[in-house]
């Protein structure tokens, strides 16, 4: 392992084994991560840019894009609010059952999305526990937008909390205690002390939520009913198009979704880089003050 340590930046001194390993890493990344999007874009543009653009401006396609954006914005807003509060609670307080809560928040990461979707059907489907009763008062959740939102919320639930929690724990509660002693209100402390410290982590968690919310297929597929123009998000519409032998349209939509996801991930890397750059500076000032 020592031969692989980043202690030898000089290319000339790399052993053949090292070079082979690095080449293998690039080859695997190329094959597994770079090739698929390249193929998606190639397929999308097979009949020219005009055909690709025409297919994503079709009314059903536009409806899928709109629904995806709505669901993403709603999921990010709700899960960010919840995630901040949860991370705050878990990082700054010690109470019985805290570690159980931390474990529970991670459930959506380990549970299959299909199961997540089926759970909502079990609750809100007309054969489910509450579906029929809610229907009677005019509220439809399964096979409508609220069901899709619930499915999206479930799968994106942990991301904000998971990114904020370690940072908030590391920060401790000294600054908040000082602010409380100076008479600041809860919201003032949240906005003025806690969040500014954690802003890059918060953004990063929000972007992770965005990427997952846009791309979720399994959970949404179960509760959506696949009604084109009404309850199909972009990933679902891609499947419908592909199964309808509309390859160019399917891959155009896939390319658009890929661009949106890559932009999100790109922004996230940018923010994480900034987060890392600010960290040492903070450490210095803290050290100077002591």
């Amino acid at each position: 392992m020592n031969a692989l340590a980043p202690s030898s930046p000089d290319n000339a001194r790399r052993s053949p084994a090292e070079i082979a390993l690095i080449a293998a890493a690039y080859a695997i990344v190329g094959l597994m991560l770079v090739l698929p999007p390249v193929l998606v874009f190639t397929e999308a543009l097979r009949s020219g840019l005009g055909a690709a653009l025409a297919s994503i401006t079709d009314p059903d396609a536009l409806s899928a894009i709109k629904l995806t954006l709505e669901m993403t914005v709603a999921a990010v807003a709700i899960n960010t609010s919840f995630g901040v509060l949860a991370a705050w609670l878990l990082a700054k307080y010690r109470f019985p059952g805290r570690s159980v809560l931390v474990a529970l928040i991670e459930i959506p990461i380990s549970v299959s999305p299909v199961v997540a979707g089926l759970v909502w059907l079990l609750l809100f489907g007309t054969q489910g526990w509450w579906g029929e009763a809610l229907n009677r008062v005019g509220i439809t959740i399964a096979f409508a937008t609220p069901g899709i939102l619930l499915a999206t919320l479930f799968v994106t639930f942990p991301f904000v909390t998971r990114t904020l929690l370690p940072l908030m724990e590391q920060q401790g509660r000294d600054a908040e205690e000082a602010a409380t002693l100076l008479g600041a209100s809860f919201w003032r402390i949240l906005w003025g002390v806690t969040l500014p410290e954690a802003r890059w982590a918060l953004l990063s968690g929000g972007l992770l939520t965005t990427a997952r919310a846009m791309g979720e297929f399994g959970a949404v597929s179960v509760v959506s009913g696949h009604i084109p123009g009404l309850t199909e998000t972009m990933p679902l519409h891609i499947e419908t198009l592909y199964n309808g032998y509309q390859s160019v349209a399917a891959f155009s939509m896939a390319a658009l979704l890929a661009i949106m996801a890559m932009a999100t991930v790109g922004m996230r890397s940018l923010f994480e880089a900034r987060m890392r750059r600010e960290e040492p500076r903070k450490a210095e000032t803290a050290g100077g003050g002591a």
Partner: protein
Amino acid sequence: MTSSSPLTLTRRTLFGAAAACAALAAIGRGRKASAAQALLNVSYDPTRELYADINRAFAAQWASTHGGSALAVRTSNGGSGAQARSVLEGSPADVVTLGLAYDVDMLAAHGLLATNWQTRLPHNSTPFTSTIVFLTRKGNPKGIHGWADLVRDGVQVVTPNPKTSGGARWNYLAAWGWALRQPGGTEDTARAYLKSLFAHVPVLDAGARGATNSFVQRGLGDVLLAWEDEALLAARDLGPDKFDIVVPDLTILAEPPVALVDKNVDAHGTREAAQAYLEFLYTPEAQKIGAKHYFRPVDPTAAAESASIFPAVKTFDIASLGGWTAVQKKHFASSGVFDQIYSK
């Protein structure tokens, strides 16, 4: 900490959660109101192209007879069993056009529509019929001419999973019925034939369209057991130089039925439009559209006009096997014949 933190946190959080729930409910109501302006046809897998055309033609007809008022029909497609399941769980279907009567019977058993649904429209509520045929690679390199050839060494057969796909159940029953009707055919020989047939199936897709995609786009297998409409679409439109159709000497008459979902049309106030939509399927115009998409018209005139599209077939029907309820229980229920021949 002072009183300003934990207590406020709880109260505000509760308030926020209540607001979120209210917003969620509001979205639910809003969507429902807008959905009432349209019809939803929940259909099985291979009807995508058919109903896309029919919906357009029906909208035009509706507009001309209703003073230009627009009526959009949306179609949702998927495996017949899966689609029936979502209607059962609350998918707001005004009409269902599924792959087999059993799936509609299941909805009727749960009170979503009248149990006599199949007598409410002509021809057992079946505006188009189809049958099960074979699709092979161009030139039929494995020399497949009938059911017996499917179980020869080195032949790979693609068919979807009968547990989830209506088309697959027709495939399975076509094979079963053929085997029963062979000289010396008994239930035991039919069982043995199906067991050896499914030993030649490399992958069970969930729906008919998935199986066609496996065969057509992914190049899997030597022969696809398919709806005739699916096979003709693949052989004539997708790859005229890639596939051949083989019609076995005996196959099954597939009757994919259509029905009004009483509970939903009454809730949506769409009974009149939904009934008109189903009746429209029997008009010469819709029957012609059906033939264009390789569904056999039941109207004798349209059938005569489109006779050249369809190969001649000799068929038996589901009633000769005892009807769907008996067949479903015997073959596709848990630990039925399919489970027995597929697990061993």
